[in-house]
């Protein structure tokens, strides 16, 4: 039986309760979104006691499901004002899953705002909340190092521990603050980055969560043999498909840089061009060459059971660890969008973001907006680092920067601010790639590339034939993508698994076979997609209650009015088509009995 762990920071008490039967099929994003929808008033002050930080492993968390160790963190977002789900790798999800924890709900706020606590979960089932006031204000890397030392002194530390860590930006309540999760080597370099969830964690006075899993075994299955068979089928697909067995393990997600640039959709210098002349300097191919030459690790998983192995460590000229190999979106935001073409500079900025605990996408978009104001020049890496330093020191200007691209753009009077629902656009210009524009506009999460990142067989009918420069078919494609992504986020799968599903129907079958064999419930393709629809329905309705309307499902006007070279394209998907993306919500809401 999975249970909910409830931590009340107003009273500093911890309680347990069984997972309600109505949510028995939920995990990950479905569960965090359902809990936030149910327990957080839509008009709650995001920084107040009524907001709740919800942390959940996927339904298959704690099992050997390949690439099934993603962690979902949800709350009402300080950045968007809507329901936020941010998803991360790292080792914490499997650890929580093995403990039978369906979700941690952190609610209330401590009376004393100067405190910092550590929430600790031990293998024997005990949980405590201990003061760690000395950690307040420390960066994420130093926090983990000190916490390891404290636990070692108490003979509690082992290598089998996961940390969920808040940085100083989150403690200072900045709206671009994310939450770091440690990887298998103990580096806090995985991030639930988007939407300012670090700020929510900061209000709760929780500096870190430590999850000790020494001696814990994987979760039991309703049908062990069937589960193992499905795991083998799924793993076989992932280890033979070109995307998951070759491109991602070799080059990481940044293999996209050259491709998106070639398509003219690589946003450059605050979305003023679709091509970056310096792309070679920050591409996945170049990053691999640099890393190999310096003796860095270029292939590992971010959690146990990952068979794709797209993670890598970027090292300095002396071969010392700097940061994880910047993902495509981070290399773009801190690189091309700022006009920076040097990989070492991008890696240094990435490390700084990770240490102070801010979302690399929002940070890069914010710096590019600031550069567009003329205060600093595009391409000036030192000036970009100075901006991050301001955030880390919490200066008045740093607090503006730390609240993200929109806050910075409004403060400095920038005309083109690339945000939807107050969140910065990621690394794909929606003018030459219209489909991603639909997802940016309509996602419940604000501008979010991962909201429609996956591919499943049900979208092939339209997905294989859409013209990237034309509006036809884009809304239907985005709808399918968003539903499928929500499903994978709920099961706890890395969204990259979906690439194999595209060409290998047996991979999609294996997903519902794993869910059925593990839970003993009936799961099939339709049930998987229903899970995705229910997840989006909670999120959409919460946002409606919070005051969002169809008018919020729009791109900034400059994407509709200012043609982007080389295609000279503008975004042309109509408002009516955008409004059709969530057409399923009323029916699913009725099925769920929610309004």
């Amino acid at each position, binding site marked *: 039986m999975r249970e909910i762990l409830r931590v009340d920071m107003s009273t500093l008490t911890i309680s347990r309760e069984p997972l309600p039967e109505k949510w028995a099929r939920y995990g990950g994003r479905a569960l965090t979104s359902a809990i936030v929808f149910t327990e957080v008033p839509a008009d709650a002050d995001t920084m107040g006691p009524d907001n709740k930080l919800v942390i959940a492993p996927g339904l298959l968390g704690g099992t050997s499901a390949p690439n099934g160790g993603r962690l979902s963190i949800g709350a009402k977002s300080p950045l968007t004002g809507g329901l936020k789900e941010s998803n991360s790798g790292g080792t914490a999800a499997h650890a929580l899953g093995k403990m039978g924890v369906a979700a941690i709900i952190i609610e209330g706020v401590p009376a004393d705002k100067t405190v910092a606590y550590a929430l600790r979960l031990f293998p024997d089932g005990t949980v405590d909340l201990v003061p760690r006031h000395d950690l307040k204000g420390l960066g994420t890397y130093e926090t983990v190092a000190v916490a390891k030392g404290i636990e070692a002194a108490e003979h509690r530390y082992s290598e089998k521990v996961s940390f969920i860590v808040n940085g100083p930006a989150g403690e200072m309540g900045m709206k671009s603050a994310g939450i770091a999760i440690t990887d298998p080597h103990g580096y806090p370099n995985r991030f639930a980055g988007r939407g300012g969830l670090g700020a929510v964690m900061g209000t709760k006075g929780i500096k870190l969560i430590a999850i000790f899993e020494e001696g814990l075994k994987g979760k039991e299955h309703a049908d062990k043999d069937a589960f193992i068979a499905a795991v083998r089928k799924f793993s076989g697909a992932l280890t033979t498909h*070109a*995307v998951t067995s*070759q*491109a*991602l393990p*070799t*080059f990481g*997600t940044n*293999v*996209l840089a*050259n*491709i*998106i640039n*070639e*398509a*003219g*959709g690589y946003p450059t210098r605050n979305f003023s061009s679709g091509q970056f002349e310096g792309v070679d300097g920050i591409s*996945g*191919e170049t990053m691999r060459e640099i890393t190999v030459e310096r003796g860095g690790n270029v292939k590992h998983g971010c959690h146990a059971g990952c068979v794709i192995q797209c993670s890598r460590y970027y090292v300095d000229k002396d071969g010392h660890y700097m940061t994880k190999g910047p993902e495509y979106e981070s290399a773009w935001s801190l690189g091309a969008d700022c006009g920076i073409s040097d990989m070492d500079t991008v890696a240094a900025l990435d490390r700084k973001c990770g240490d102070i605990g801010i979302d690399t996408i929002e940070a890069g978009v914010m710096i590019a907006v600031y550069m567009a104001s003329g205060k600093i020049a595009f391409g000036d890496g030192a000036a970009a680092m100075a901006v991050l330093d301001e955030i880390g020191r919490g200066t008045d200007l740093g607090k503006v920067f730390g609240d993200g691209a929109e806050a910075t753009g409004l403060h400095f009077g920038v005309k083109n601010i690339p945000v939807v629902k107050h969140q910065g656009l990621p690394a*794909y210009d929606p003018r*030459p*790639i*219209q*489909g*991603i524009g639909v997802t940016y506009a309509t996602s419940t999460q604000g501008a979010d*590339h991962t909201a*429609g*990142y*996956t*591919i499943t067989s049900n*979208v092939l009918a339209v*997905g*294989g*034939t*859409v*013209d*990237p*420069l034309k509006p036809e078919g884009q809304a239907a*494609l985005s709808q399918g*993508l968003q539903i499928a992504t929500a499903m994978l986020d709920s099961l706890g799968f890395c969204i*990259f698994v979906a*690439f194999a599903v*595209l060409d290998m129907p047996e991979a999609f079958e294996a997903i519902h076979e794993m869910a059925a064999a593990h839970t003993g419930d009936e799961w099939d393709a339709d049930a998987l997609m229903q899970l995705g629809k229910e997840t989006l329905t909670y999120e959409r309705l919460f946002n409606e209650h919070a005051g969002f309307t169809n008018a919020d499902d729009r791109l900034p006007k400059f994407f509709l009015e200012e043609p982007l070279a*080389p*295609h000279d394209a503008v975004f042309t998907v109509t408002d009516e088509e955008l409004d059709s993306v969530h057409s399923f919500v009323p029916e699913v809401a009725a099925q769920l009995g929610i309004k």
Partner: protein
Amino acid sequence: MGDVPVTVRLFGALYALQKERGGPTVLEIDLPSEGVTGAELAAMLDLPLSMIEGVFCNRTVRPLGHRLMPGDRVAFVPEGTPGPHRFLLGLYAAGKEGEPSVDTSS
């Protein structure tokens, strides 16, 4: 031969293959004035078709049967483009056209 060479870029696994061979990853190739198909150009460069899913011609994805002309900007994309972009850019459709045939679309 045409007066203006075609510029060819190689990405991902094709980039790595060319590096292993000690060759440049951005090439300028002279084409006949009537052009060649993407598959024919791949053969000229000794690039295995099994590694190629699509070809960019002047920033737009085309199938390997598309005719490339002198002066075009070309990039070969291997199988393995992650994300929805295989769909959103048309790589999936290009790669699914089967054996290369001549495509006269401009």
